């Protein structure tokens, strides 16, 4: 229960965490709201796991302040925080049964045996594993261990649940299934979830809001649609989905002002060479030649070299076209067009292709 006037579950206020000379978390400011599914998205080494460990209390901030539900908590040890973690390697106790693992938190809190047994079984039912309660973790599959880890954290009814790439070790089908289940579970229990992943699809699929991290800093925070449709930097545009970068003379010609711009491959329409493009001044039109085409089943991806030497990637629905039609596009002259309002001006282009 969050007291009124404190809808913020977790607040980073200029938090710094150094390892030697490396600033793993570099002056991060961030607010995670009570009850939301928040994702920290970034490549490995971007500081997302360190942020999670700061919330859990496994790391202490070297600078700045960390608030949990309004209280300055940076110096609290993990066992005094109303926060639980689902570890990347699950961290199940190998010498205990599944039930003992789940009942560990209640046992530590001194809940009587019969009651903690019931709590554990309820939590295991929630993740559909009640029948495996007597097994040892070594006798479970990866997906089952993941569920036990989840039950062990949720049984404590924490105010914030931290998940460190919990689906990373699972195969694709199971991962997709668990994404749906996790999201449903989060809605059901209403606990704040802070989720760490490097998988942009997972982040877009599950999050209420997400933060894209890079080199210890947050590049952009927003709802999945905002971050995808309105990337602020080239890093965000290229890490969350794929994008085309427009710079130099091409950008100047198309957009009428110098700078760096991003346009998503699926926003670009591909026409026959010389075709009349409707929409007039709202649409940018370019001529080019298909240099490479890949058939991907539902979609095809074409790389088109445009006048001025740049290459744009275009994604096409294979609605009317079959794989033979797609193959015939190779080497053909084409015309491209896209709405100018689908193009985003970027703030910075560090790490962008030259």
């Amino acid at each position, binding site marked *: 229960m969050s007291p009124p006037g404190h809808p913020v579950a977790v607040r980073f206020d200029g938090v710094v965490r150094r390892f030697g000379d490396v600033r793993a978390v570099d002056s991060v400011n961030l607010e995670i709201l009570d009850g939301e599914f928040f994702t920290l998205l970034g490549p490995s080494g971007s500081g997302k796991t360190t942020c999670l460990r700061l919330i859990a209390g*496994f790391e202490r901030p070297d600078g700045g302040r960390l608030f949990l539900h309004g209280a300055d908590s940076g110096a609290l040890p*993990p066992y005094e925080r109303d926060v639980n973690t689902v570890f990347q390697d699950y961290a199940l106790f190998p010498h205990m049964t599944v039930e003992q693992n789940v009942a560990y938190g209640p046992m*530590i809190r001194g809940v009587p045996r019969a009651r903690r047994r019931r709590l554990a079984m309820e939590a295991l039912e929630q993740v559909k594993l009640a029948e495996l309660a007597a097994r040892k973790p070594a006798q479970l599959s990866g997906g089952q261990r993941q569920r036990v880890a989840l039950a062990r*954290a949720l049984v404590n009814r924490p105010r914030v649940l931290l998940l460190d790439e919990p689906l990373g070790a699972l195969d694709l089908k199971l991962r997709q299934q668990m994404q749906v289940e996790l999201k449903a579970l989060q809605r059901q229990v209403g606990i704040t979830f802070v989720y760490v992943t490097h998988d942009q699809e997972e982040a877009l699929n599950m999050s209420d809001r997400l933060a894209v991290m890079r080199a210890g800093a947050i590049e952009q925070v927003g709802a999945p649609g905002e971050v995808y449709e309105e990337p602020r930097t080239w890093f965000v545009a290229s890490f969350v989905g794929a994008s085309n970068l427009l710079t130099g003379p091409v950008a100047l010609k198309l957009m009428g002002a110098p700078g760096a711009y991003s346009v998503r491959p699926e926003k670009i329409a591909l026409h026959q060479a010389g075709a009349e493009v409707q929409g007039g001044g709202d649409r940018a039109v370019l001529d080019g030649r298909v240099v490479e085409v890949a058939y991907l089943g539902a979609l095809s991806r074409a790389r088109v070299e445009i006048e001025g030497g740049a290459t744009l990637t275009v994604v096409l629905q294979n609605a009317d076209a079959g794989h033979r039609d797609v193959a015939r596009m190779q080497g053909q002259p084409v015309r491209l067009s896209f709405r100018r309002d689908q193009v985003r001006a970027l703030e910075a282009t560090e790490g962008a292709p030259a």
Partner: protein
Amino acid sequence: MTGAASSARRRLSSFLLARPRLALAILLAPPLSWLGAVYLGSLASLLVQSFFTLDDYTGQVVRELTLSTYGQLLTAANLDIVLRTSAMAAAVTVAAAALGFPLASLAARHARGRMRALFYLGVLLPLWSSYLVRLYAWKLILAREGVATWFVQRLGLLGALEAVLELPVVGGPSLSASYLGMFVVFVYMWLPYMVLPVQAALERVPPSLLEASGDLGARPAATFRHVTWPLAFPGVVAGSIFTFSLTLGDYIIPGVIGQSNLFIGQAVVIHQGTAGNIPLAAAFSMVPIAIMAGYLAVARRLGAFHAL
């Protein structure tokens, strides 16, 4: 010529590759025959000897199976030897575990790189020099005029040392002539055998388990009790097998340090050497084996080998 030799070698290789069982048998024959004939064979002959008896008049071994030699073990003097040795082995084991565990967790959890190398050197270095040299060094250290007494004196605690030496059983005229001194030397000698298995066990505990325990609300002491200790316990048992059995069987340390009362190892030496009573020596030798078997059975019941 070489071509013929190499083709013969190649034929032999493919012959063995196609018959993995034969290759395994060839590899295992020497160690297994050593284990079977030399090791288990002599152990069996020891067992058989312990069921013979010595004729008191002729001094000859009577080669008839009897329990009378084991009966002699139960006489007050011999039982004393067994109990004294077992008590010392138990005390040494407990002390080695108490001292070794923090050392091992330091090495397993905190030491990195150079610190770690120093740790291994510190633990193993004593084993590079002769056991006898170290033992006699300790005799000098613990002697009445030795450095230990001098140090205690400098601390102004000579009175305390003397009070301890006045104590019955553990005391004596000086540290080197007391069971306390013998205990110190035993712990020193066997400590590495406790530290290394415990360290290996602790290293197999992923740090995330300790974090998970704290995350679930456990203070460090509770984490130790519920997670670290149960997972390190097999290592402690492995170490205690060394410290316990080495103490049970040692006959040199009790001869150099401590009082003149016998330990099992010394009894074995005396009975098979000077007294020529091979059956009683053999019966004494069976005592540590029996104690260790019982010890392992208890450890097994406590779940020491579940995590292996």
